[in-house]
């Protein structure tokens, strides 16, 4: 672990030094996507500049090198989440595609009429809509686990909703709206007792906390590269090898085949069976560079920094009597994501006004409409931090929120 030098870290990210509306950028929308350090930008550019060939085919030097770089990236991901084998690491375009892959290739095949699929009410639409589709097609039922008054999930609710009829549980490790961190290890343990498989949506959690798929004992885990300082367009599906082996391919085409005859095809082995078409080699290389960058800083230092930011932001937001904060009050129980509402000011107006002060935050339903309906809040404003945010940026946010308030008095 290197010394946590925030100035040095910020200098690694070219976008952070830019100005927006003639004000220094204060980027607090990291739950949507993160900025990219120079090493990631360089790794992608270098790949296209110096190699750029279609992997897994051709005997020429560039093709062989592209294959090696792509497979080395897979190995970096495997090590990062502590999977047993790189056969268990499937590159997708994002977490959403990975969830769709599971829904089609596992859900549609294994879930039958009368079975139950259990989700948490705080899921992102990407972890709801594919399961609604499976439930509808297979005449299965969809059940939601609801949150308690602290906006956390009580294990009693888990035990109530996961039953002998449950075939699959899909849950985000961290809520993208509330920042709540869910007890996924306990959920997996209970679901396995009931014979269900568990999908963990790690889109929010994987960039912020050490994720060990073998420790959690997850059956599937998905995440996106771009929320972890990697490029957009690269995501990861982890699946236990025995499950992936039994699943039919999701997309058909080149690179996922063994033999193709006029009427029939045999499929390639793992992980290629699930990677049809030319893969995003540049994206995979960029993701691996981001993982290496993150690993150099280390989760311990990152966590310490994020707790400091979250604690300070919660304290400063509480000073504003017209602000309501959602989610757990204890910063140790949540990730660096805070949703809030301001009395008398709609979140879109908040976002537009603070934008003129250079502050980027998210407003709206955060792709979690069932949660917003459950919270009886049609929309909220959301700030989310990462490695490069500072206490000073939170001060700028608070000052700009005070200015927002003046428009609506």
């Amino acid at each position, binding site marked *: 672990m290197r010394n946590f030098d925030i100035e040095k870290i910020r200098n690694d990210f070219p976008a952070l030094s830019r100005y927006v509306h003639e004000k220094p950028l204060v980027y607090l929308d990291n739950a949507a996507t993160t900025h990219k350090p120079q090493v990631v930008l360089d790794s992608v550019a270098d790949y296209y500049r110096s190699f750029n060939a279609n992997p897994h085919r051709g005997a020429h030097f560039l093709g062989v090198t592209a294959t090696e770089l792509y497979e080395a990236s897979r190995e970096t991901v495997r090590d990062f989440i502590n999977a047993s084998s790189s056969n268990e690491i499937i590159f997708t375009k994002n977490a959403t595609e990975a969830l769709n892959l599971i829904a089609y290739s596992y859900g549609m095949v294994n879930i039958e009429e009368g079975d139950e699929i259990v989700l948490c009410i705080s899921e992102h639409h990407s972890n709801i809509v594919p399961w609604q589709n499976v439930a509808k097609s297979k005449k299965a039922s969809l059940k939601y686990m609801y949150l308690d008054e602290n906006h956390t999930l009580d294990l009693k609710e888990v035990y109530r909703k996961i039953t002998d009829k449950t075939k699959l549980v899909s849950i985000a490790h961290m809520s993208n709206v509330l920042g709540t961190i869910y007890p996924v290890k306990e959920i997996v343990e209970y679901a396995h007792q009931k014979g269900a498989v568990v999908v963990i949506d790690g889109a929010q959690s994987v960039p912020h906390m050490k994720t060990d798929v073998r420790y959690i004992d997850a059956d599937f885990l998905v995440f996106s590269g771009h929320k972890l300082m990697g490029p957009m367009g690269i995501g990861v599906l982890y699946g236990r090898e025995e499950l992936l082996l039994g699943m039919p391919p999701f997309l058909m085409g080149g690179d996922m085949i063994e033999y193709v005859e006029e009427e029939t095809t045999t499929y390639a082995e793992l992980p290629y069976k699930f990677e049809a078409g030319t893969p995003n080699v540049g994206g995979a290389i960029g993701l691996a560079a981001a993982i290496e960058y993150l690993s150099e800083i280390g989760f311990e230092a990152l966590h310490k920094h994020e707790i400091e930011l979250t604690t300070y932001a919660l304290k400063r937001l509480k000073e504003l009597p017209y602000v309501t904060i959602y989610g757990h009050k204890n910063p140790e129980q949540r990730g660096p994501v805070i949703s809030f509402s301001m009395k008398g000011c709609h979140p879109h*107006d908040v976002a537009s006004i603070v934008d003129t002060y250079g502050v980027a935050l998210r407003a709206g339903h955060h792709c979690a409409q069932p949660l917003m309906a459950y919270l009886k809040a049609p929309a909220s404003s959301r700030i989310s931090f990462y490695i490069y945010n500072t206490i000073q940026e939170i001060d700028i946010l608070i000052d700009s929120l005070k200015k927002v308030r003046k428009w609506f008095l």
Partner: protein
Amino acid sequence: MSLESIYTDIILENSRSDHNRKHLDCANCIERGHNPSCGDDIVIELIIKDGTVVDAAFTGSGCAISQASTSMMIDLIRSKSVDEAKVLADTFLAMIKKIIEEESDLEILEDAIAFKNISNMPARVKCAVLAWHTLKEAIKRKQA
């Protein structure tokens, strides 16, 4: 872009005004308008008799821009013919798209001209036009 040109007094006043926010007992034309990406959600209710918008109202929730735009549209179309309401909607949308820029061509919009500058804030255009698209949809369905 200045906030003052967007959040004008007239828009802020109308965003707070509740005089058009109600249900109509005998509404015969009801249309929901929704911005799926941000959650602005309105329902406009019209009483249309003999080709005239006899009364109009709305309910729903959203940002200051969407709510002010809806309320000002309701004020504008009340007692107008359906054809006039359609012309108003087309004119408003053309103003936002900068297809019509001449002040004299925009006069029929009265106070709703205040939304002209929203085209300088692209992220909020959809908030301003929601009610007007909803109105066009309502009329289209009523006439179908």
